[in-house]
């Protein structure tokens, strides 16, 4: 067997798989986007349709806000927990598993879990009243606008923070302790060690996890729909689901679904590329070890 051919042979299944099952749908999808409802080729017709569609502007705004706020919030939480849980102490492993539980819970189940809590006679209100923190139950589910968005952000944070945390924990635990000890021996206190040594050295893990989070955050939809219902808190992909699931019969539903999917995909790709470029540049200097 030709030695040179081996890598290509190993990659052949992947290549075939992607050619058939990825390139084709991608091409088909793109084609759909550029052919309007009447069957004529048009670069912009479907996009016009999309821009004018119900709640589109709101969905873009919500998605942007969601991404910005949730990624930052989840970062701070994940980093704090990672720093605390990567130390060696009794029960650290158990606590780590507990913190990972939300990540393993199916999003649908998460939605139900929180929905049962958020309804007027749900357990959140029940606990708050029992603890005498509030007198009257709060009507969470009738939240509107920004507070509704905030609600989704909080639920998402509950679910997602663990998956960011485990990446950071692995990075922290993989760091040789002597790097920190050397700084300590020269007089650095805990904060300086964290700022000057730990954080910069954690950069690869941080970059990896941020980009995974960005990609996922831009595609948020399920929690919003399952807890609050369609159109309450529109997001890009929520709109796609809307046209596919809620109103599939509309004349324009299909086109809108395709165009929205296409747009979301493009946004994800652009954001990822920009992010990677920015981080590659600043890490061009330092290597890993």
């Amino acid at each position, binding site marked *: 067997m030709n030695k040179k051919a081996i890598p290509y042979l190993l990659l052949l299944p992947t290549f075939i798989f992607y050619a058939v099952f990825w390139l084709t749908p991608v091409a088909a999808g793109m084609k759909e986007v550029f052919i309007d409802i009447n069957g004529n080729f048009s670069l912009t017709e479907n996009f016009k349709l999309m821009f004018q569609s119900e709640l589109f502007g709101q969905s873009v705004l919500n998605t942007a806000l969601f991404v910005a706020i949730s990624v930052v919030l989840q970062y701070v939480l994940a980093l704090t927990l990672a720093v605390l849980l990567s130390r060696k102490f009794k029960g650290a492993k158990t606590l780590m598993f507990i913190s990972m539980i939300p990540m393993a819970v199916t999003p649908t189940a998460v939605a139900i879990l929180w929905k049962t809590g958020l309804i007027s006679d749900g357990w959140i209100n029940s606990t708050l009243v029992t603890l005498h923190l509030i007198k009257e139950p709060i009507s969470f589910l009738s939240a509107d606008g920004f507070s509704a968005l905030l609600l989704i952000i909080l639920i998402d944070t509950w679910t997602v923070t663990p998956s960011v945390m485990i990446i950071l924990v692995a990075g922290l635990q993989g760091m040789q302790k002597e790097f920190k*000890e050397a700084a300590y021996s020269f007089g650095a206190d805990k904060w300086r060690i964290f700022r000057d040594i730990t954080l910069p050295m954690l950069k690869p893990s941080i970059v990896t996890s941020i980009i995974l989070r960005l990609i996922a955050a831009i595609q948020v939809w399920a929690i919003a729909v399952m807890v609050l219902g369609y159109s309450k808190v529109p997001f890009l992909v929520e709109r796609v689901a809307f046209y596919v699931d809620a109103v599939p019969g509309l004349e324009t539903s299909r086109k809108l679904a395709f165009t929205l999917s296409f747009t979301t995909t493009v946004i994800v790709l652009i954001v990822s590329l920009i992010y990677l470029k920015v981080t590659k540049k600043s890490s061009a200097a330092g*290597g890993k070890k």
Partner: protein
Amino acid sequence: MSYLVLKDLEKRYTKDGNLIVNKMNLSIEKGEFIVFLGPSGCGKTTTIRMISGLEDVSGGEILIEGENILGKKPKDRGVSMIFQSYAVWPHMTVFENIAYPLKLQKLPKAEIKERVHAAAEASDITALLDRYPAQMSGGQRQRVAVARAIVIKPKLFLMDEPLSNLDAKLRVSMRTELKNIHTRENSTSIFVTHDQSEAMSLADRIVVMNKGIIEQIGTPMEVYQDSATKFVASFIGTPPTNFYEVKIEKREDGLYAIATGFEYKVPDRLVPALLPYTNKKVDLGVRPEFVGVSLEKTHSLDHLCESVIQFVEPQGTHAILITDIGGVETKIMTIDHMEIRPNTKVSLFMKNGNVMFFDIETTQRIK
């Protein structure tokens, strides 16, 4: 007053755990180059980590210039440490690495620059100041660690096996450089290693450690020629000391050491010390260079036995002959008989009565 004093120093990791360091006592004078020598797990690294402040002390005291430094942070102890892995920060340039300790002390920029350059020059890495560690070899990174350690002008230099990760040739050349830097900077240093030839070359005094206790403290010559315990005699010297279990017998003309493979008359000067061991077993140790080889049939006073040489390892300046005496593999170092071939029958004798006896239970040298 001694510069550094360790008083009954102890370390254990769990409440009823083993003593990793067991009542160590040591005094070091200013300017000395001390080497902690011992096998893995003997406690040498743990001890310098306690001195540096990276490890808590379970018992005892550490005094620097008469002052008890326990509880003080490393920076306040005036110690500087070079780690086995160098711990050179990969995300900072060489300059930033060396400057970091000074930055922590909040020194003015100009002074930092000056001192960094001085340290870089002493460590011969001035050309690398703008590079990142990932772009450098292991040896270069080691020099960065050295420069960083000396830039703060510490009272005490602690080095944890700094040469272990280098290849053999580099190890030997860096050895000399480290000693030079020590002398130039007028520092006091503790160097940790498991390599006995390294220890012998560098130390003013060697602290031989085993399983948390000090076996012997002495100059290289002292630990070599006047080994205090069986461990020291076996650890120091290459090839290592040959050991035989012997029984001391009293005969009309004196004491004899009886082994499975030979009978040896105990030298007069050692008789008083060995008398109490009559009819008891002790360990006899003799270094390879003190076993004499003779091709003649006549036997001298110091005759050991006859033997067939099994292997010969020529070393250029000398040869190592390997043979078997009473079931014990014996290595002999010879200069006069380098041309001997394997399977030659020779006669072996003790040179100059240069033997050491050790108590079997206490492993202490009998003298």
